[in-house]
């Protein structure tokens, strides 16, 4: 095979993007654990670990730029690099959302809505992320659509969870209790933001699947 160094660089890029996705998925898992256990130490670890993800992102972005500038990729190679360039952006954003979960944990004071199953929402998003990255790793166009389909289910789950919070808030007498209003509103806001952030993780997973579909099939059907 010709252009051996170039082919090696492409393989390394693929491996590095997959490694970044593993780190990001781990941080997201940790972020969900911090919420579950109200583990402040773990939350701080997630927050401080964001620099590592940002550095990974910048390194991989530079790798993509170098490949484009120095190797002039075309056809499937070009689509692979272009897709990777976009996917690392989604991964970096998911890392930011994991940080949000850590910050919510540090700020949270009480668990007001035990009926809202944040962990279940988190599990769905993690599965979507894992599956999206598997499509990328295996160049599996078929399962890209499956990831996109599951986002509809996640959106419905998140919408139902948000409604549950609002209905419970309206029907309860928490806001009538003196001195509780401000802290209650802050906790409600944090919970709604948590639900929203997990829904956005799902969106990023769909983006990754969409870029993979473009990469493999030159098909932009899932791109917005």
């Amino acid at each position: 095979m010709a252009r051996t160094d170039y082919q090696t660089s492409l393989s390394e890029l693929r491996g590095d993007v997959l490694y970044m996705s593993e780190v990001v998925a781990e941080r997201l898992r940790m972020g969900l654990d911090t919420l579950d256990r109200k583990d402040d130490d773990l939350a701080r670890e997630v927050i401080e670990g964001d620099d590592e993800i940002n550095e990974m992102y910048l390194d991989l972005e530079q790798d993509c730029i170098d490949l484009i500038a120095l190797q002039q990729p075309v056809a499937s190679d070009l689509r692979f690099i272009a897709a990777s360039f976009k996917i690392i952006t989604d991964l970096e954003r998911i890392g930011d959302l994991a940080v949000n979960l850590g910050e919510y944990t540090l700020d949270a004071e009480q668990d007001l809505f035990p009926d809202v199953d944040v962990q279940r929402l988190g599990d769905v998003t993690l599965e979507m992320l894992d599956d999206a990255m598997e499509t990328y790793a295996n160049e599996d166009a078929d399962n890209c659509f499956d990831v996109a389909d599951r986002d509809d289910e996640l959106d419905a789950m998140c919408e139902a969870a948000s409604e549950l919070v609002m209905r419970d808030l309206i029907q309860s007498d928490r806001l009538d209790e003196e001195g509780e209003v401000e802290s209650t509103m802050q906790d409600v806001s944090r919970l709604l933001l948590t639900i929203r952030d997990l829904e956005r993780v799902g969106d990023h997973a769909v983006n990754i699947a969409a870029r993979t579909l473009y990469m493999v099939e030159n098909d932009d059907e899932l791109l917005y």
Partner: protein
Amino acid sequence: MTRENMTDEASSPADGGDPTTDEMLVETSPTAGVSESDSGTAGGSRTLVEARNVNVWYDDDQALNDISLEIPENRVTAMIGPSGCGKSTFLRCINRMNDLIDAARVEGDLFLRNKNVYDDDVDPVALRRRVGMVFQKPNPFPKSIYDNVAYGLEIQDKEGDYDEIVERSLKRAALWDEVEDQLDESGLELSGGQQQRLCIARAIAPDPEVLLMDEPASALDPVATSKIEDLISELAEEYTVVIVTHNMQQAARISDKTAVFLTGGELVEFGDTQKIFENPDSQRVEDYITGKFG
């Protein structure tokens, strides 16, 4: 044979000049090796040159294998492929330069504006007035800049204001501003890039319909190359440009259509340049342009 009587000849399956007939010809013509979406008119441009089942042999060696493709008018069409794939041979078929090679034998049909250039009644010299050519290495004559450009006009006894034609040709070749005060100086005094633009000016002075370019920038530095590339895009507004290049990025930058020839003189894929370089149909083309072989 003059341009007029070549164009008016009635030996083509689609007689020249009738747009309706031309379009019917384009729609029904064979397109072996050509993407379906790319057959017929290209981006609204009519087919100017059409090859049908062209085969070329040098003695017993087959250099082109059943080539069929349609080159659109006023577009840049690039021919790429590894050494020995036949891309330059195909280029030389268009103006019958292969006639000058004793060992060369051409079969098939090659139409220029619906007239088969290999018909017995076609004068190759007259054909080459309609199909100019620029070569890899700049080859100005040991004459003045002015005479280099005017040379083609003189040997054709072409009438007209030579001063005006020379100036217009040098301007179209993006050289006028650099040489307008030294038209009497030797063309050999110019830099390599300027010499190549002088050769382009010489080629376009007789106002051809097609400009064939065989690796026109491969002997030039990057700055001179970029000037030639800019020039090619501008020339396509007036002429139909067919360029052979080993530089795939150059083909990607400047051409509207790309034909990929591979070993054995086979046209493997022909289509929009964007499609070829982003998502070619052929795995062999994919492997070639990504450098996995060749």
